[in-house]
């Protein structure tokens, strides 16, 4: 074969290779497109709008939906926010609320419930998990009304009625222990999400792997530690990341239970402040621009935390190849 012919073949080969690569890219982006479009429509565009609102003085008293005629005030809202004497307190309230609820309920208790209910009779496990899902599927208003009736002060609250019957002192629990109930109320809802994810992950582990570990002499605890836990790292990352972001932005239950009180912002979290400022005001003149500044910082915190989680959990490795299949 002549040199020319060889060169020609190579050119054709490269052409085919380039075409295949292009097809491959197009295919990949084509499959990603629906999700990408949703992210653009429901995340990037709203974030851009809220970012813009945060540099305007938009309020009920000058409200308009026309971005072009909103009054631009630069970083004034952010300066007001940073000078707010309670911003630091609300920030640390948020950190506390997310860390405690996430670590105790949304991850640890969810994992514990999953492990326990997958190691008992299958029907019994199903019943227990169904019970844990009840707080999630109950309307937040109904759910909080139930809690309020339970912890109301004497003679109205159920817990205090027991206290009275037992000759014990009664309490206004919302006043004495607001954080306990804010965390517990939200935690009971949060457990179900992780429980479903972890349970499905545990159930999907091939039975021969689990049995093999027992044959090798491991105890059930050792099997959990050395077989199950490594195989559910991906769901664990997902639950931790998703629930962190979910807790950062959740405020409905807190609003209904304490509305950020009692006293000076004792249970006020960042997202509730954004809501209070931008969307709810007893005396009407809601501060849309100022509230947006709170929301923008919340988005930034969420994005930073998501990136940190991905690094810590080595996201690239987790999505590289299914570990179960590799084994």
């Amino acid at each position, binding site marked *: 074969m002549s040199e020319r012919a060889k060169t020609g073949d190579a050119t054709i080969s490269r052409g085919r290779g380039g075409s295949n690569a292009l097809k491959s890219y197009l295919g990949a982006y084509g499959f990603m497109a629906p999700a990408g479009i949703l992210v653009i429509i429901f995340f990037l565009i709203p974030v851009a709008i809220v970012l813009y609102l945060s540099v305007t003085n938009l*309020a*009920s*008293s*000058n*409200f*308009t*939906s026309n971005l072009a005629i909103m009054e631009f005030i630069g970083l004034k809202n952010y300066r*007001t926010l940073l*000078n*707010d*004497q309670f911003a630091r307190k609300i920030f640390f309230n948020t950190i506390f609320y997310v860390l405690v609820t996430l670590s105790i309920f949304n991850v640890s208790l969810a994992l514990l419930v999953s492990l326990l209910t997958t190691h008992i009779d299958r029907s019994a496990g199903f019943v227990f998990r169904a019970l844990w899902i009840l707080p999630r599927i109950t309307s937040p208003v109904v759910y909080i009304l139930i809690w*309020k*009736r339970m912890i*109301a*002060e004497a003679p*109205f609250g159920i817990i205090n009625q027991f206290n009275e019957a037992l000759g014990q002192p009664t309490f*206004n629990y*919302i*006043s004495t222990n607001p954080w306990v109930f804010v965390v517990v109320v939200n935690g009971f809802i949060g457990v179900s999400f992780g429980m479903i994810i972890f349970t499905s992950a545990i159930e999907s582990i091939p039975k021969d792997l689990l049995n093999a570990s027992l044959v090798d002499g491991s105890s059930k605890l050792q099997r959990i530690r050395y077989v199950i836990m490594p195989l559910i790292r991906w769901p664990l990352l997902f639950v931790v990341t998703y629930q962190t972001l979910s807790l950062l932005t959740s405020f409905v239950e807190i609003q209904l239970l*304490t*509305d950020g*009180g*009692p*006293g*000076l912002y004792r249970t006020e979290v960042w997202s509730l402040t954004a809501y209070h400022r931008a*969307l*709810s*005001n*007893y*005396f*009407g*003149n*809601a*501060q849309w621009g*100022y509230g947006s500044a709170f929301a923008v910082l919340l988005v930034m915190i969420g994005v930073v935390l998501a990136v940190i989680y991905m690094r810590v959990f080595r996201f690239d490795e987790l999505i590289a190849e299914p570990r179960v299949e590799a084994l």
Partner: protein
Amino acid sequence: MKYKLCFTMILILLLSMLTGIAGAQDSVGITIRCKASPPEEDWRCNNFAEVEAEVEADLGIDIDLNLIQDNAGWGDYKNEFVLASEAGEAPDIILSGHEDIGAWAPAGFIIPLDDVIGMHSEFDDIVPSLWDSHGYAGQIWGIPQDAEARPIFYSKLLLRDLGWSEEDIESLPDRVAAGEWTFADMLATAEAAVEEGIVDAGNGWWHRPSNGPDFLYYYYGHGGEVLDMEGNLVVDSEALVATYELLGGAVASGVLRSDVIGLDWNEVWHPTVAQADTVLFAAGGTWNWPNWSINYVADKGGDEFLFENIGLTLIPAMATGKAITLTHPLTYMISSGSENPDVALALIAAITTPEHNNKHAIDSFHLGILNAQLESEAYANNRLLSSAHYMLDHTTALPNHPGWNAWSNAYFLGIQAVETGEADAAGAADIAIAQMQNELGDGITVR
């Protein structure tokens, strides 16, 4: 013959089309949005249905009336109107607190009424002081729908236990109005009730458990002002400190609970106060009465039980020496997006009569807005209204200003701080003033 028939049919067709068009032109759609606690406040919107035919006859038009009435939360209700206005879907008439004029007038969502009020003689009879709370930038922007008083409810039951005679109890409103029995006397009485075990510590006096207009009268009672002569926001630091001293002192002396803010209205506050056997003095609103009668003491006799065991009086005099109350009139405002503001105003005028306003006043225990109501038999013979109407002579109101929400939220922060012990009175005032200055900047003057 055929041509004549055809001509006649075409003529009939054309006439019927013209009639149809004329009918369509005369049909005017009016949407009215009201917030009301059912059933006692339903006349706020339902009154319009009562006068629909009358206004149709007067104006010679057909009105397609659309009443939207519920008991949504104030925050959501107000946002709904703001968003609807911007979307061009606002109701023709919106009923809301008069303080919303301060936000909605500058936004252009409602129209000024100065030039058209004179077209309806019904408005001439409105109690003059009520117009004060409907102004902004030198113009009138709403028509009063109701008035109210925010009194102190006192438990006759517990005062009897404390040794008060029936004469002492029944004369209390008059003595308070005359400035003879002051807020200090009220706190001393409450303290005595606690010391003697008539009420538990903290149950001598309850104020409302959430932010709201009531709190402003403590500040007014100490000579504080919210607006200066030019209509700019001000805060009087001395009055502020004195107000916080009063509230903090009441907690320290065991008269007021430190956790009264945060109590659930419906789970704790109303059911407790309505029984008259737990709390000696409670700062509430006249409209609480029918709510208690219907929802909390109906099994004990409703109104009769309340008359026997609860009385109401003005807020006793504080530093200014004058007994006061605060009225928060709800206001019918006409949307700038209304295509038929003249029809909307005619409807409002038609219900601004003693006959129609009395229905609302009597059912919901809101005070009348018309001078003629006082002389009407239904109003004058109503035991509750006749016992409370004099309070309008002592009333104050919220300001109409876009910065009012920032002012009031900061003021409320100070109240929370001093009552929970997180700051003393001076510290609470510092917190409130710092918050006002941070959010209002040059828009607030500290005096």
